[in-house]
Structures are given as C-alpha cells and as structure tokens.
C-alpha cells in the first residue's frame, strides 16, 4: 500500500530546551499532530530544505535543496523566540522571505511577555504568539491556521526590519542536543 490516506497535519517544533521540546511534542501529539522536533533554527531550515549542509551527505542526497519543499510536507512551524544563534524571529523572517516556505503558518513561543516583541513577530507574519508554558488551550488555537495554510495564495510580505532586541546569550550554557527527533 502507499502512503496513509488519513490526513495528519505535520508540525515542526523548534526549541533549544529539551524540556520544552518534550512538552510541546506531547501537547501536539495529544492533539493528533505528527511532530518533528529540532533544537535550532538552522536545523529547522535544513529540515525544510532551505539550508545547504555540506557535511550532511545523507541529507543532500535525499532532499533536494533550493525549492523542493514538497519533499518535506510541513503544515505549521512552532518556534521558541529565544534561542542561541538564530532566534525564532530570525527563523520567522527567513521563512517569510522564502518563496517556497512563506505560506507555512508560523507560531512563536516565548517565556517573556514583551509587547514590542509580540507585535514585531505578528507584523513579520507570525500567526500567533504563545506565552510559555504553552497550554493545550493554545494548541487548540492552531487548527484554523493550519486549514488556512492549505488554501492560502501568495500575499505580498510585509517586512518590518526593526532593530532586533537583545536575547540572552545561551551559547556557553545550553547543552547541545544534537540531531533531529522525528517522533
């Protein structure tokens, strides 16, 4: 038989905290979503086929890069805001700037309630901004965005490049959890 006929939405979750990744995974799976969880923005872009990784031969051979997003069918991206290297905001911008990915709905999560941060993300095209810890009631809000994403036509993007606010430097402190967790 071929692929499963049942349409299950595929959510890509991005968070550098293992604990928060486990939590968001469980919340999403409880809501019957298929989940892929990664620990960084660059891993997310790799998974989405946007970033070229010279060291990863396996990836390069199995996923065509540039604009072949149909190899990986992601219906929604939910990402933490504060991450070392690429922040959730940076990731959001890269996705919205990509011809192949810009229609994928993006949701931002943050532990800090900073109005300017929230409005900046929403202006950049994020569908929702969830305060951590994320609740089941938040995940329940995802459905309409997923349905919309399926039928969405391309719209002109509004890029407001306001100054980036400071995010905590976690480089030396975060344990590096390598690899993708496909659950």
């Amino acid at each position: 038989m071929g692929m499963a006929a049942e349409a299950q939405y595929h959510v890509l979750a991005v968070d550098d905290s293992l604990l928060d990744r486990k939590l968001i995974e469980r919340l999403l799976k409880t809501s019957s979503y298929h989940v892929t969880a990664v620990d960084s923005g660059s891993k997310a872009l790799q998974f989405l086929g946007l970033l070229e990784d010279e060291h990863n031969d396996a990836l390069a051979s199995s996923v065509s890069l540039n604009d072949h997003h149909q190899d990986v069918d992601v219906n929604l991206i939910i990402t933490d805001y504060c991450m070392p290297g690429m922040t959730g905001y940076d990731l959001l911008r890269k996705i919205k700037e990509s011809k192949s990915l810009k229609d994928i709905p993006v949701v931002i999560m943050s532990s800090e309630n900073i109005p300017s941060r929230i409005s900046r993300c929403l202006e950049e095209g994020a569908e929702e901004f969830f305060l951590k810890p994320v609740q089941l009631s938040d995940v329940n809000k995802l459905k309409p965005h997923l349905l919309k994403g399926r039928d969405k036509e391309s719209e002109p993007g509004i890029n407001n490049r306001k100054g980036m606010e400071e995010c905590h430097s976690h480089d030396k402190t975060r344990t590096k959890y390598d690899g993708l967790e496909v659950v």
Partner: protein
Amino acid sequence: MDGMTQLQRQWREHTAYLRKEGYLDDQFEQLQKLQDENSPDFVAEVVSIFFDDSEKLLNNMARALEQKVVDFKQVDAHVHQFKGSSASIGAMRVKNLCIEFRNHCEAQSLEECVRCLRKLQYEYSVLKNQLEYLFRLEQQIRAAGV
C-alpha cells in the same frame, strides 16, 4: 486492595499538599493531564530532564558568581533558563525565586545574588525530595496494581 487505596490516598494528599504549599502550581497538573496510556511516564521523564537541567544550571550560577569579575549578564542568562524550565513543570517556588534572583542580577548586587542562589539551591533540593517521594508512591501504586 486496601494497600492500593491507601497508597493512592497518600499520593493524592501529597500532591494536594505540594499545591497548597506553593511548591507546585497548575502547570504540574497540566503535565499530569498530558500523561496517559500512550505516554505513561511522561511526567517522570520531564521531571528527570528538569533535575538534570537544574543541577547543571545551579552549578553554572555558582561558578559564575565565584569569578573575580562577575559577569552578571551571564548569571542572569542561567537564571533566565532556570526560570523557564521551572515554569514549564510548575515549580512555582523555584520560579518565583528565579524572578527575584534576576532583579539582583540586574542591580548587579553580588551579595544579594549569592544569598538568592543559596535560597534557590535549598528550595530546589526540597522540591526534588518531594517529587522523588511522589514518584516512589506512583511506582508502588503501579506495582500493586498490575
């Protein structure tokens, strides 16, 4: 099944006690709701990650505060992370101490930071003991039930 009922009652009472005393808040209950037959060890798994993270972060804070020239931004980064993970599992007392701690970091007050770290280490170890006791009860309940 007298032993089973007693264990379950102990478990319920202890959870209620932890909530009442403010060790845990609603978020812990949310975690428990996410646990089911499909992921029967979810809470234990998440709490275990929390323990690992916490110990690492507390060490990092201690080391950072011992430096000749203290980098308060670095200390704050560790506390910020600890605040996040404690909030994620519902460890309210720990989380609130982190909030206090961050204020001292911002004020760059070494003495207050050191004092706060000690309080944090204490609260964390109390919480750890409480949760470990809770999980032991759970294990006993499961062993008695199957």
